[in-house]
């Protein structure tokens, strides 16, 4: 039986979709069978970040409404063959995702995949609560910034109250993924430190993703960063986070792109 993971945050723009794609690809690269699901009905973007936007024929809502079978809607990644995407629809009907429909689809995917990763929409509305509903594990994506930390706190409260596991009296496994972290600014007292965020949210850390130009570059190309540039600092951070998710003990670090002086003076990058 596969593990169901929700990538959530409350606040928008903190890196849920980027992290879903990067972690999904990182896990799939190790041979694990992974499906990433876009729950952001009406504002889908996981397809774009994964470079599959022109291959969408059927979507999540089509499957729920019975217009398509699940295998017809799953898009297999062209680079990593154990990675699949279930895209959201662009319908404006917010009620298109139903509780029973989502339960059925997750129930069908769970035995066939090692990882079912649900990319939650921002907010605390229906889409977000449905995305977390069946999760065994939650990844709370947080920026070291007041509004993001506050929203994460709210989401952590919802994870402990509104998920299937919580309702059964079980504990949902929660991890914090700190993204867009700038160690220099934190050292100068301009940004909440890792310790600050951990103390405030008291949730164990899955990884620290450094702020990096490489993230935008990867989404511009439509390739998860862990595939497009696995040696870059953010990709190394995501690869480590994926290993921790699998239960491996990986020492926590903040990878950085230390470039030599020559490299800084001449040209940005070789590839």
């Amino acid at each position, binding site marked *: 039986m596969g593990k169901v993971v929700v990538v959530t945050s409350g606040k928008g723009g903190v890196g849920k979709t980027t992290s879903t794609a990067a972690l999904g690809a990182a896990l799939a690269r190790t041979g694990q069978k992974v499906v990433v699901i876009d729950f952001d009905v009406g504002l889908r973007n996981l397809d774009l970040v994964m470079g599959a936007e022109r291959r969408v024929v059927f979507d999540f809502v089509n499957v729920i409404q019975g217009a398509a079978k699940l295998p017809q809607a799953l898009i297999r990644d062209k680079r990593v063959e154990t990675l699949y995407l279930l895209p959201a629809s662009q319908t404006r009907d917010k009620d298109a995702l139903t509780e029973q429909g989502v339960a059925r689809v997750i129930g069908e995917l769970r035995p066939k995949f090692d990882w079912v990763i649900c990319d939650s929409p921002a907010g605390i509305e229906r889409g977000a609560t449905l995305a977390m509903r069946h999760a065994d594990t939650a990844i709370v994506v947080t920026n070291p*910034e*007041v509004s993001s*930390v*506050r929203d994460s*706190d*709210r989401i952590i*409260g*919802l994870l402990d109250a509104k998920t299937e596991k919580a309702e059964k009296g079980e504990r949902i496994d929660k991890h914090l993924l700190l993204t867009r972290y700038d160690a220099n600014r*934190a050292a*100068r*007292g*301009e*940004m*909440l*430190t890792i310790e*600050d965020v951990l103390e*405030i949210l008291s949730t164990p850390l899955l990884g620290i993703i450094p702020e990096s130009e490489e993230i935008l570059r990867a989404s511009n190309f439509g390739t998860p960063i862990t595939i497009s540039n696995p040696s870059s600092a953010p990709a190394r951070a995501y690869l480590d986070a994926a290993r921790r998710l699998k239960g491996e003990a990986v020492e926590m670090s903040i990878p950085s792109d230390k470039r030599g002086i020559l490299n800084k003076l001449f040209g940005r990058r070789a590839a």
Partner: protein
Amino acid sequence: MRFGLFRRSSAPVARERLQILLEFERRIDGSDLLARLRDEIIAVIAKHVTLDPENVRVKIDRGKAVSLLEVDVEIPNSPGALHATPTEAM
């Protein structure tokens, strides 16, 4: 405040503001405490005094050690307003 040397670092301020706010928000557990308080306060007072719910303000000021609940009830001076409305004795 313009120059780097004299500028107070902002992260500790962020940290403290968040701690105070979240401690409060966790206690009320995301539910709308103010609205509930307001409804119940109005119900209790309306048993004894005629009042316009529009003129009841409930406010919470969050402090570090204690929070202050402020209830502001405007009672019209019209005749009979201060007389108990006919409800059974409490």
